[in-house]
């Protein structure tokens, strides 16, 4: 009997200790995690639109205005979520006032990207991403679809998802580029 009581009691004690430790760690880390996430968003935005000094959210989590030091609009950043091979491919697109792409950034696996490692995941490499720089919506199609973007070999689905997503995003949101 005594051993049965201890069996239950020891499990309860371990669970309580574990819950206590986890809640302490959570309280300490949560504010920092939130801060890191906000900073990560800002870093990501300035990666795709380096000309801007600050960003003003216009449509939450979808559209930002990029502003220079004097508060003048220098471009916009949009987030598009086309369907890739393993799920949505979250992509940030920076556009300058001439409707030209200033950079794109694809979310990392830690941020929820499910493309195949070694294939679709290569869409995060600069080789693929840098092809978009300086291009306008009409040029942004895969070469086999009559455009100027080289697909990643053996990862056409991801390449096409990103390419189509970027173009459709530009077409949909470029009206926000008016000063």
């Amino acid at each position, binding site marked *: 009997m005594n*051993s049965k009581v*201890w*069996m239950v009691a*020891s*499990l309860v004690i*371990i*669970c309580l200790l*574990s819950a206590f*430790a*986890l809640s302490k*760690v*959570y309280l*300490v*880390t*949560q504010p*920092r*995690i939130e801060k*890191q996430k906000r*900073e*990560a968003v800002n870093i990501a935005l300035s990666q795709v639109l380096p000309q801007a000094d600050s960003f003003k959210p216009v449509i939450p989590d979808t559209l930002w205005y990029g502003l220079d030091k004097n508060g003048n609009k220098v471009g916009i950043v949009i987030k598009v979520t086309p369907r890739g091979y393993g799920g949505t491919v979250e992509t940030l697109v920076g556009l300058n006032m001439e409707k030209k792409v200033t950079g794109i950034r694809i979310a*990392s*696996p*830690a941020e929820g990207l499910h493309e*195949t*490692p*070694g*294939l679709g995941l290569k869409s995060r490499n600069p080789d693929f991403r840098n092809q978009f720089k300086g291009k306008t919506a009409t040029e942004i199609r895969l070469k086999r679809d009559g455009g100027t973007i080289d697909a990643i*070999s*053996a990862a056409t689905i991801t390449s096409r998802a990103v390419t189509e997503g970027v173009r459709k995003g530009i077409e949909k949101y470029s009206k926000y580029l008016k000063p």
Partner: protein
Amino acid sequence: MIPENRPSRLKYFTSGIILENPILILMIGLCPTLATSVTAQDGLGMGIAASFVLICSNFVISLIRKIIPSSIRIPIFIIIISSFVTIIDYVLQAFEPGLYQVLGVFVPLIVVNCIILGRAEAFAYHHGIIDSILDALGKAVGFTLVIVLMGIIREFFSAGTIFGAIVTPAGFRQSPVLFMIFPPGAFLLIGILKSIVNRLNENKGK
């Protein structure tokens, strides 16, 4: 337990690397090994993350092993291991976001790494703190070496790079052996490695 007259403690460490390599000899922890050895860097990330949890869990379990009732030891091990995994997840996110970008996807996978539960059950539950940490270190190094080796081989054949560095001519990288990226490639490779190890062991026995 093999009875021995007080073996040198360092043996607990060194045995994990070759003689009792968790993957190639004990054949545990195969799932994360197959799944995350696509590139050398992925393998290294998984190796480091799992090693950390393995060392922590072996330490805590050997510390409290005398008060754990044996009939419910497995649930207790699992609570301890999953608590460490969650703590690491939070701490990495809060303090090392750069590292989290690389390791983040692997952290939840550590829970199902049976090397950790296996070592808790087979070693830490029966041994002292220092021995358990040495055992964990040895198994961690053994696991990391194999997963990185597999990552190097698979990355070499499937992308023509090693740790992202280009090591093959452009022609090879244009049409690499994509097969090695996919699960069948991983199974084939681990079979080949296992057969090499078996052969070496056979020769040693003669």
